């Protein structure tokens, strides 16, 4: 695949450390309450390094709340989560990003009035040179090369100088992933990456996720069952803020409880 050589450069060496069996993420009794509503209820969740894990569940099952907890947007009411064995519960989003968790958003969340390359460049720059005041940003070749590699990896090569607002919906969705990727994460949380995409765009994005998954761990929330079943090695089913089931795609498809609450409806 053409994108592969540059992709190696986009992922930190540390992502490959730790061996395939090490736990990258573990949540212990993670609970989020909004007033009287319990959005997440004592969620115990383990994620192996290098895995592609899908989270599915009906609307309101707590999937996005779970992502918001992991990325520091929400502070859990009780419980904690460990990233690479380190308790990072309650850290603000910028610290969690620096620890190596990145996310893309369900509703496209980019810098619309900047060019595509600038969108990923600013993300790449968050790891180094962010406090440099007296050097022109174009003087940092390492950041620019990184940004170009990321754009190529997400299939936006040649679109670098276009304003992000002028990209097509599918391109913006991939730019969204590019921004997350440029922060050199170890764990990438994708919130419905194929939402609103055409069949062809969905296929391209699935190929993209498979390519980047070679170097990092991926947690993906998705409604498109075809995407979930093809991409994920394991699936976790959320229901009313709790984990209803967990297993391989085949196990989930046969699970009577999952069929009852989700897949059949």
């Amino acid at each position, binding site marked *: 695949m053409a994108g592969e050589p540059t992709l190696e450069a986009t992922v930190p060496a540390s992502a490959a450390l730790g061996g395939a069996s090490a736990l990258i993420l573990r949540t212990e009794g993670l609970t989020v309450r909004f007033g009287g509503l319990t959005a997440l209820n004592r969620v115990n969740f383990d994620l192996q390094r290098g895995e592609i894990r899908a989270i599915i569940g009906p609307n309101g099952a707590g999937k996005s709340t779970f992502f918001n907890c992991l*990325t520091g947007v929400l502070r859990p009411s009780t419980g904690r989560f460990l990233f690479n064995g380190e308790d990072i519960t309650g850290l603000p989003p910028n610290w969690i*990003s620096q620890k190596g968790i990145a996310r893309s958003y369900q509703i496209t*969340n*980019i810098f*619309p009035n*900047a060019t595509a390359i600038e969108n990923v460049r*600013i993300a790449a720059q968050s790891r180094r040179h962010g406090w*440099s*005041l007296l050097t022109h940003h174009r003087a940092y070749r390492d950041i620019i090369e990184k940004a170009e590699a990321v754009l190529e990896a997400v299939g936006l090569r040649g679109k670098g100088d276009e304003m992000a607002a002028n990209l097509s919906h599918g391109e913006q969705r991939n730019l969204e992933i590019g*921004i997350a990727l440029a922060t050199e994460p170890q764990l990438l949380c994708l919130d419905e990456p194929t939402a609103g995409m055409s069949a062809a765009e969905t296929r391209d994005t699935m190929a993209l996720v498979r390519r980047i998954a070679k170097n990092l761990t991926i947690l993906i929330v998705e409604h498109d069952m075809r995407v979930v079943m093809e991409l994920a090695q394991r699936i976790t089913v959320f229901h009313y803020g709790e984990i209803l089931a967990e297993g391989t795609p085949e196990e989930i498809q046969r699970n009577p409880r999952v069929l009852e609450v989700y897949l059949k409806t």
Partner: protein
Amino acid sequence: MSARRVVVYWTAFSVILALLIVAPLVLPEFWRRFLTEILIWGLLAMSSDILIGYAGMVSFGHSAFFGLGMYGAAAALLLVKPPDLWLAILYGLIAAAGVAAFVAYFATRLRDIYFAITTLIFSQIFYVIIFTWTEVTGGENGLTFGRPALAIPGLFSVPFTSETLHWFVLAVVTASYLALRRITQSPFGMVLQSIRENEARTRAIGYPIERYKIAAVMLSGLFAGLAGVLYAIQNRFAAPDFVFFLISGEVVIFNVIGGIGTLVGPIVGAAFFLLLREGFSRFFTEYYLIPVGLIFIAMVIFMPQGLLGFMRRWLNQ
């Protein structure tokens, strides 16, 4: 940017700079002084553009930084004999930086209109302190002092004339412009602009937003304080009126008229506004604010980008 654009930009820059250098030699005394004053107000407006145009934070507190720059310079010129130009600048910058650190620490916790109101309140607090603390600040009457000599220690020392004062101010404003321009193009400046575009996402990709905002307010306050020092040196007084929020409002108007996010736009805006006021006050005496206000409203409706808004991308290349 392409090589041709570089050439065009620096040619325009050099031509305008040359005109400003020659101007005091051909202008009569009144307009010579007026031009120097435009440059000083332009520097103040430009400092505020860092926040308004680049970081997307509207400050109504720039009078505090400007005023403290004036009073800092006054302290140096009154307390240290003989009065020293560089010490006045140093004291002014320290005073402005102190206030800026205070305002930045508290105001940056808030966003949008709440940030604007907080900066306004802080500047009014400093106004009241300066207005009432008569023993130190001279209260309502302010402080008067002599003008320091234009000196480089060990080399030369000559009294300021209106020409050399203009050139000195021009040199400081030009250096400030080049520094601010470089800062807005630096990685730090790019972070400020992404905060303006999408604050939540900027935080999510790993930037400690609060620290960047504090740094931006401090930086902006320093340059505003520098403008205050220059104004004190030009006019040989410091007065509480210059800490009052009317000044902050004018600074925002300079930005809007000239075009935010361009750095030079606010200078042009200051020139335009001061010339309008000068012209109209001759015809309409104390009612001059009515036509100025009408023109301002018309500009906001028909030219919301400001005078130089159309050049924004080019100026930031």
